[in-house]
């Protein structure tokens, strides 16, 4: 009996969570399929913005995971002086509101010559402390034994990380990747400061400038379906990967 009620409750809750997204799709279809055709054929700048968004989000998430896995290894496996303190700094910076770092990042991107290029968004994302934090926490719970065992086989640390550690935390890695992706995907304020040519704006920015209407709903639907699709593809991965170990 409890089981039935709970299932019903969960089902209703899930529906409530999905409702707004569904509303967007419904609203976009009010004029039939035309807005979608528009998006792909007649309004090329949205398609271009979508490409920019994907470029930035993919590179950011992949890059941050790559860099942060290495950092996580050091943070979780190697005891060094100041480790706690450094990690502490990572967390504090991670919590800073973006207004504090955005202007200096503008200055730096100009100095490095990456202003008004997607690189201006990608670099800060790749070195974001968030991914390092997340992966460190996950890596802390990898059983030491498997690492020690691996060390007997090879002395290359990179090999150990890639062949032994990462496969065991596959779910966490994917989780970090998806979260970084989603965060970059939705950014609006940062691209407006770090870039100025409309051809470099990601789709999130263009959408924020477009007025309401069937077209903007269609564009929004497409905008959110892409990361959702990614997530659904990897959902099983996450399930598999996270089973059998604990997040410490």
């Amino acid at each position, binding site marked *: 009996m409890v089981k039935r009620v709970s299932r019903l409750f969960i089902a209703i809750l899930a529906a409530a969570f999905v409702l707004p997204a569904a509303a967007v799709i419904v609203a976009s279809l009010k004029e039939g399929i035309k807005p979608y055709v528009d998006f792909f*054929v*007649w309004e*090329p*700048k949205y*398609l*271009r913005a979508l490409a920019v968004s994907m470029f930035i989000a993919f590179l950011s998430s992949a890059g941050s995971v790559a860099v942060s896995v290495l950092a996580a290894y050091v943070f979780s496996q190697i005891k060094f*002086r*100041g480790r706690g*303190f450094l990690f502490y*700094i990572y967390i504090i910076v991670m919590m800073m509101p973006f207004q504090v770092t955005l*202007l200096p990042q*503008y*200055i730096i991107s*100009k100095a490095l010559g990456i202003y008004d290029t997607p690189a201006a968004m990608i670099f800060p994302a790749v070195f974001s402390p968030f991914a390092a934090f997340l992966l460190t926490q996950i890596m802390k719970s990898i059983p030491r034994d498997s690492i020690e065992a691996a060390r007997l086989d090879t002395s290359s640390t990179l090999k150990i990380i890639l062949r032994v550690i990462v496969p065991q935390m596959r779910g966490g890695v994917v989780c970090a990747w998806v979260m970084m992706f989603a965060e970059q995907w939705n950014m609006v304020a940062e691209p*407006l*400061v770090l870039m*100025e*040519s*409309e*051809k470099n704006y990601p789709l999130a920015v263009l959408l924020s*400038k477009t007025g309401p209407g069937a077209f903007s709903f269609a564009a929004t639907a497409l905008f959110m379906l892409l990361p959702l699709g990614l997530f659904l593809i990897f959902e099983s991965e996450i399930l598999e990967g996270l089973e059998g170990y604990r997040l410490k």
Partner: protein
Amino acid sequence: MKLHALALLTAAAVSLSTLCACGGGSAPKREENSDYISPEPLSAAQAAVGGDFEADEKLPVAAYKNIAFVLSGNTLARIDFSTGERVDLVSDTPAFAVGCDGSRFALVGSDFAALYDYDGKKLSEIALEPEASLSYYGCAAVDGDRVVFNSSGKKSDSIFLWDTKSRKVSELPSTWQAGARGARVKSLSFGADGVLYSTFITNAEIAGGDAASSVCDISEDRLISDFKLAASQDGGRIGSDGVYYYVEPYAASNGESWSYFISKVADDGRSSTVAMISPETLKGPGTDSNIIHNVHDDSDFLFHDSYSLEYSDGSNFVVYNLTAGLLVAFNISDSAENCLIALVPETSEQHWYSDAVKELAVQYASESGMQVLVNAIPKDEYDDRVRTKLLAGDDDFDVFFASGALLNSVLKNSAYYPLDEFEGLVNNFDTVLAEGVRGLMTADAGLFGIVLRAEYWGCLRETQESGIPDSWTIDDLFKFCDEIPAGKKVFGDRYMITRSVCNVIEDMIAKDGSIDEKRFSEILSKLKEYNDKGVLCDGSADNYLTYGMLAFDGFNILGNDVGEYRTVVNPTMSGTNYLTVEALMVNRNSKNPESAAGFLELFTRPGYVYDNSGIKQVIGRDITKNSIWPNIEPQYQRVYEYSMKQYKDSKPSVLEALDGFSAEVADEVSLVFDGAETPDDAAKKLADRLSYIYLE
């Protein structure tokens, strides 16, 4: 613990070094200006288009960097700008269009197309079907093995692609002319990665129809972007960097010459000028001046030649002067050091700001040899971008426009280069502009800029002799109400008093830094008292004041009815008027503050200010010194003289930057007058509403 201390010390050290690098600068340093470098672009070379050309008729031309191909008569010649030599490569060809890239050129005619290398050796040829036939008007472009050209075989132009490798001619899908159906192709060019750019005229039947452009990727068969162009942006082409370039003529403000900008506009409307070119460069030696004499009415007028941009990659350009039959190739250096950059907001409705700056840029260049380039940023992004640049200390711009909230914050933080040290400018403020304008344009750090527009709303005019002084304060108003004769009231309706109440608030914030709720409430109470007596706004008495107009915008009152009685402005709190100001200012971090100030000085010069009776004039000028002053009718003269007095003791308004604020004030006043709200509550509400301005 030690580690924490060490980290804190490091952080402190880094922060301190920031402080030291900034130094305790109060007055910005002024550098001695180096020699001005001529604004002429480097290595400008000219070549006659040759053959028998007719003025303003466009011969088929194609160009790439320093090389141009001209089809005149039936002969194709190659011109090398660096050596000046001209070689005939192909003769007796019935082609109508020529296109080229870095190593090949193509000729396209009504029934054939041929590809050659730079020496004229034919590489490939193909016969064209009638539907792909080129008519008298054509464009062509080459990219490696591919040749594109347009055809007017059907009702509207189509673009055809000839792949010389596969020896196939195919028509490109018309989706690429998105939004430009029924279009006539004006230019075709290739960008990096083989992307095809094209510009069109839509609605080809009507001359001067809308211009449009599109960017397509041939290999991927899709449209990348398209955008509209204005008619004034005609004659250009999309450069290999994907931005639309065109030649923009501007008359000098003294009406005696033209100068030219190479301008670019991106698909989001962002436009900027990249270089200034003098007429001599574009017209060649020994050509007549631009003045055409009209024999019918014996008048002279200026005209400029027609230009078409034949090649652009962002730094190399080839311009075809259709009127003089001249091809000019030049490149622009990164001459950021010896030119001024001005930032202005761009609106699609009007190009007021960029027009004003460009006009004077022409004059400034001729006087100082320094170019002034304009970057127009879309209006909705303008304020935020300028804020970012100001806070970041960017030095890549010299002059910028500011209004509204941006102006207020710039003034409060002295984010401008004070202009007091530039005597020419200061002199103009004192001798050319009306008295008080200098005070209006002076803030904490000094003279902050020049006025482009200053507006005053809420002015009134008498309906009959009233004895109201030219300028009065709230206390004067109360006294006037005490002594007002029976059957009379001051204002025609409640809304007329809104300005006075705003003046009170504005004055309190400006002078005391906050709203004195008690005093404000007292004033509201007193106003309500008088209103209840029927001598202020409500009631059936005869009103002394009704809506009027002030000549702050210049000559726009001419032709309007200003009545026979005086203009009167609303009472102020303590005698200070608050005007909505728009200004051009100099960037505090500009590399050329002196030149920037010299440029701004043009705006305030007698010649520019006095004789310009168009819309684009500088506000604040002393109209009595204008040469047409004696011809203005007395009733307008009265209004002008009165309006000039309002500059005395005036300051930029802070409240006007707030959308809808005056409407809120009007509502509160109405509530108080109706008795629906106590003056205390109204005062508190408005003070609360505004507290963030001075308290946050």
